[in-house]
């Protein structure tokens, strides 16, 4: 099995490889979405697919997110397997009706007569003045509605496994992809493999506190754990990978052990994924100390001086964790040097 040998691959290349392998395997799979077929190919994640599979299976669309989502759903009901790509998750607000009122509900409200095997890929933007409408993480809205699955892989290995699993799944699946994860490299087997949905991964074992990160907050939590180690706090880091279905047992086991939970999301906290995680932990492990971090409770600004304060970063995560673990200690913040040594995710174009 030479295929099983892992290779170093970036998140974006893993996404593209997953799509290409599935398109090779299954002629029903196709890719649609604004600009999926241009020379930039959605930051590279669809690049070259049109040359390989032709314009019938890889096509751009008019700027009509609402109808295009309906087209994807209709095609899926007809037996095809569309992957609908959005370069910003913010644009999903234009097709909420199709996703929430049709895709999520079709199988149920038609008494099981249809399936909707579609994938919606949507990217969360960050940094370099993306601003109010190009930066949102809105996955909680989809988690809220039964009938949709939601995956948020945080590394290249899981990106490939999740996209393949999403394509093979018979339900609408939202892939939450954070722009800042795209260049990150991990070991990725070449042969196709599907992630098992609903299985979280403990990335770092610890005893003092559970840091649950979502999407780009996973590497940030790992960095925070490094900072915490220096003051003797042993953090466990969990990556849920799949938000719906969610690995509730893994969360419960971890927080029962550590007694503390900090849920960190690439999104707002109110009614967010982090609220759900907190609620589940509170229900399953009464007595656990809980806090959440996410976007500041405001619109995303463009000026760097404000943008910096808008996002959680490893130092902020570590400081918040410290408060949970040592509520009576005096305020601690990692030293600037330590902070620099784990500098968080950042980028500057291309858009």
């Amino acid at each position: 099995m030479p295929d099983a040998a892992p290779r170093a691959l970036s998140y974006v290349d893993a996404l593209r490889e997953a799509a290409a392998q599935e398109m090779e395997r299954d002629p029903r799979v196709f890719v649609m979405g604004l600009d999926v077929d241009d020379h930039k190919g959605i930051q590279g994640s669809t690049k070259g697919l049109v040359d390989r599979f032709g314009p019938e299976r890889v096509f751009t669309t008019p700027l009509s997110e609402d109808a295009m989502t309906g087209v994807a759903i209709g095609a899926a009901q007809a037996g095809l397997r569309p992957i609908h790509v959005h370069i910003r998750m913010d644009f999903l607000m234009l097709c909420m009706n199709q996703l929430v009122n049709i895709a999520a509900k079709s199988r149920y409200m038609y008494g099981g007569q249809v399936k909707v095997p579609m994938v919606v890929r949507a990217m969360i933007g960050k940094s370099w003045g993306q601003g109010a409408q190009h930066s949102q993480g809105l996955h909680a809205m989809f988690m809220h509605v039964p009938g949709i699955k939601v995956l948020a892989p945080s590394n290249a290995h899981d990106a490939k496994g999740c996209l393949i699993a999403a394509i093979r799944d018979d339900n609408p699946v939202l892939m939450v992809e954070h722009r800042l994860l795209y260049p990150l490299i991990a070991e990725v087997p070449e042969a196709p493999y599907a992630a098992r949905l609903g299985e979280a991964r403990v990335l770092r074992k610890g005893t003092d506190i559970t840091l649950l990160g979502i999407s780009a907050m996973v590497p940030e939590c790992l960095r925070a754990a490094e900072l915490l180690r220096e003051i003797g706090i042993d953090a466990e880091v969990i990556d849920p990978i799949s938000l719906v279905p969610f690995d509730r047992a893994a969360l419960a086991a971890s927080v029962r052990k550590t007694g503390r939970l900090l849920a960190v999301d690439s999104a707002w906290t109110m009614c967010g994924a982090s609220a759900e995680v907190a609620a589940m932990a509170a229900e399953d492990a009464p007595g656990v100390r809980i806090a959440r971090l996410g976007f500041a409770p405001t619109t995303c600004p463009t000026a760097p001086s404000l943008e910096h304060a808008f996002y959680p970063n490893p130092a902020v995560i570590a400081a918040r964790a410290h408060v949970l673990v040592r509520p009576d200690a005096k305020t601690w913040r990692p030293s600037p040097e330590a902070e620099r040594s784990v500098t968080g995710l950042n980028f500057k174009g291309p858009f």
Partner: protein
Amino acid sequence: MTRPPMADLERIYRSLRLIRRAEEEVARVYPSDKIKSPVHLSIGQESIAVGVCDALRHDDIVSGTYRGHAAYLAKGAPLDRMMAELYGKDTGCARGKGGSMHLVDMAQGVLGASAVVGTTIPLAAGFALALKREGKGRVAVSFFGDGATEEGVFAESLNFAALHRLPLLFVCENNGYAIHEPTAKRWATNRLVERAASYGMPAEAVNDGDVLALRALVIRLVEGMRAGTGPAFVEAKTYRWREHVGPNEDFEAGYRGRRDLEAWQATDQVVRIGGMIAPARRAAIDAAIETEIAAALQFAENSPVPDPAQLTTDTYA
């Protein structure tokens, strides 16, 4: 236009009459509370579903709306499963989970309907995309109301269908109202046919509900579509005889006049086509329809309600 052969006329009459009578029965039963969801009746509008569907092949696809009994029946889906669905029974076409607004029968080529106006139009386009790839000459029809044309997704769908030359027939059932609001309160002018044509597709109107004229038009348009000429648009004017939702008339509400009703009743297509058929044949058809309706009601009555355990089944596939 030459009159179709008698076999066709009989089939068309049967379909028109079945829909009319089935919905009259729905209206009759409604006050008993046996029907477990709001009903939007097509009484008076049957000729559109029938004129279109009779021009289709069995393996073609239609997509209707929450006012969907007519399209469902005209495409040949079974009345008993429709009635059972209205009764909230496990034997319903959506297993009691959809109700009157969400009729479906994939085996008969009836896509599931939606209660959110306009939302099924792009779904039919997606289906048409799959049919085009399949390459067997099948076509899809999307039925929707005049109100639905105001939703942005309608415009988006016209553009996409034209761009991809989809085998998709858009049929606007223009009954002049969205609930109680006349088109005059929603449009500055009616140039819908012209607008559809501007996307790059043939577009025509049938203004008088003439089922045979509509059928002839659809036969002509669909022929091209099967050969790959792309989508087409039809505006079919019509009139809703009953209230927007529910079993009754509503002329006392004041938003429209009974005179309009009378004008449309004067050209009622059920009567008109019935008049083209020999009385004895017609009586036989009518009798068969009554039997079918009675059996369907019986079926609905006797069927079991869904077991509460089914509450969460089919949330995911």
